[in-house]
């Protein structure tokens, strides 16, 4: 129950681009542009840490309500990033998927690049990278319900497993760890079904500043936690277990551990 391995499926809610830009008196768009480096860094860190599934929340169904210039810029930026890194992602053996992308407002060219990247990397055996783009957790569940009803399954025969089989990418395992940057503590309609048992960490750092070291800290924070899935640990407090987990965790970590100080350091500034 308390096996503290590397999480199998890590998801990131990439929050704080706008605030990062605002802190520097830059337009919001430059915050998005700066996010690219963080994305690439995290993908590489996750892969080398042995994470099997990485999901990134890039654009929610609610984000369409942003100003149209920002949305348009995001579409172009994502297209450029996808094309720029396509060959590299493929060479690293990463299987790429795009979750959502159902809205007709997604430009055709971008949708085709997504489809091309999925086709290109379909048979890769390395880490699976799921980019949630134009994604909404509730919408996925509603879609699954529709598909379930269409398949004519009798109500009594529906189980959690058979329901999950109708979700998009049904082979995706449950999320073990969600990282939401910038200190915001919300779910925001993200992979609702899959995060049922996930641990959440909320580093204060803004997404454009998020780097491999922060990612590894989050993994260690996860490893120190007790995952109980609603059960009860056999008569023992969390203290010894935590210190147990902390020892080897710190020993393995090649990076300094800036989590507490650095989070607090940024805490004051990031809400501006």
């Amino acid at each position, binding site marked *: 129950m308390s096996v503290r391995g590397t999480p199998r499926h890590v998801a990131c809610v990439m929050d704080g681009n706008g605030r990062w830009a605002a802190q520097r008196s830059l337009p919001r768009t430059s915050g998005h542009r700066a996010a690219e480096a963080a994305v690439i860094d995290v993908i590489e860190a996750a892969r080398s840490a042995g994470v099997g599934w990485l999901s990134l929340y890039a654009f929610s169904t609610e984000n369409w309500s942003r100003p149209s210039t920002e949305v348009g810029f995001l579409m172009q930026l994502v297209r450029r990033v996808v094309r720029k890194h396509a060959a590299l992602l493929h060479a690293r053996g990463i299987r790429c998927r795009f979750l959502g992308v159902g809205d007709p407002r997604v430009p055709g060219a971008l949708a085709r*690049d997504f489809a091309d990247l999925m086709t290109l990397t379909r048979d890769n055996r390395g880490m699976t990278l799921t980019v949630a783009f134009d994604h909404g957790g509730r919408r996925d569940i509603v879609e699954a319900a529709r598909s379930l009803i269409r398949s004519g399954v009798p109500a009594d025969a529906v189980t959690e497993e058979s329901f999950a089989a109708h979700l998009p990418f049904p082979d995706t395992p449950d999320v073990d760890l969600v990282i939401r940057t910038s200190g915001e503590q919300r779910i925001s309609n993200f992979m609702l079904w899959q995060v049922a048992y996930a641990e959440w960490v909320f580093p204060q750092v803004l997404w454009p500043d998020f780097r491999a070291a922060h990612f590894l800290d989050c993994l260690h924070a996860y490893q120190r936690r007790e995952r109980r899935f609603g059960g009860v640990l056999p008569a023992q407090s969390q203290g010894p277990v935590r210190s147990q987990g902390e020892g080897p965790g710190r020993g393995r970590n090649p990076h300094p551990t800036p989590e507490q100080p650095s989070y607090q350091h940024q805490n004051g500034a990031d809400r501006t």
Partner: protein
Amino acid sequence: MTHADDGSLDSPGADPTDHDGGPSRPGAQEATHPLFGPGSEFHEFFHDPRWALAMIRATVLEAAHPQVGAALIDNSTFVTHPWRRLRNTLVSLQRMWGSDEQARQREAQRLNRLHARMSGADDRHRPYDAMDPAVRAWVVATLFESTVTMCRLSGQPLEQDVMERLYEEFRGFLAALEGHADHLPVSLTDFWRYYDRVVEEELENTEAMRIVLYKLFDHLPAPALLNGLPTLWAAGRALVGPVIGAVTVASLPEPFRRRAGLPELPGAPTLMQGAYLAAGLARVLPEGWRRPEAITDLLALSPGSDDPRARTVTALRDAMHRAGALIRLISPLSPEPEPAAADSGPRRGAEEFFAEVLDQTGNGYLDWPDLAAMARELSTRLDLDEPEENRLYDAFAAWWRELQAALDTDGDGRVSAQEYAAAVPSLAGPALIKVAEVLFDVTDKDGNQTIDAEEYRALFRTAFHRDTAATGTTYTRSAFVKDFVSFMTGRRRSSPYDPLLAQA
């Protein structure tokens, strides 16, 4: 299958009356040279790579005949669906030249029914009729002459006796089709006089001929296998298309080139002879690489088909798709943002559906020949006999009247893409549903009111796709009718009908 031994040359006792369906048999020594099947002269050529060139040349000479040209322009799907058409032609030729007499008679009847539906008038109001015996004799003559010429041009001319036997086989082919071969001269000497006369007096620079020579190869759609690589296909086509045109023009008879005003390009004769020579050399390739029907089959196989070769083909196609995806992804973006390419939604646009599915002849209008081409393709696939075939054609004809009444707003007798796009929602009328029901009936060969796996495969050449709508391994009438109607009204994009009617 008593004909299985026909081809073996070591059975001199083989009963020559086996070939009584053919024309008069010139001599007893011919018993060792069957007209059809293994051992015949033509059978030796069937796997010859030079045939690709000879077929194009024969098609140009056919199309230059005013009657054939008009029939092609009005009825043929070879511009929009050339690969499907090529495959059907090869299968038909194989049946006609195979050793199975019954299959030959059946195929001849099918071809006759098919041609009987093709008649009309060209744009100068001259009537054409695909059943005209003189016209059909000319088609056979071009095939024979192109085979002979192909050997001549590649520097390996046929011996006189081989040529005579080959001519006899082609007359036999015409006789199998017509019942007699009276419109082809009996002797080979007379044939050349006949041939030269037609070339000099009857052939014209027809529109169909120009399309074959200049448009077909410049716009040749990619076969199913290469769909993922449009850029590569277009680049190769831009290079090869004009070469094929030049090679074919240079191989046409001189008097015709002069009369039709076809260009004499410097170096074209050398290029042409080089092409024939190279194709002739390709005969040293391994047997399996030279079977035209195998190659066209491969090109036409759609993914997910449960053909034994499908796994390899699927793997090949996947590799093609990945290569295409990579090329698209790494090719630099044009600096300016692309003008709203938002048309590629999941829903098929009305115009796209019109061009891909409805307008089978590719002339920009929906007309009876387009629907007849669909009926033709469906009955070819299902290998229908006469009564079922007629039912299917009648259903399509009724649908055509319904479409015409509903859509032809300007009253010119045909439906343009604009007229179609304006009226899409009102298309699922009773006649279309009737088409779906008739198609269900003729597909359901054993009449058990469901389409089982085998019947399904006959129609779509793929296994069942277990999508959400299909339960079990059979297809019920109502589900079939619903799917067909929603495809035919352009409401559903991805369905097994796509490879059936939209694929090139």
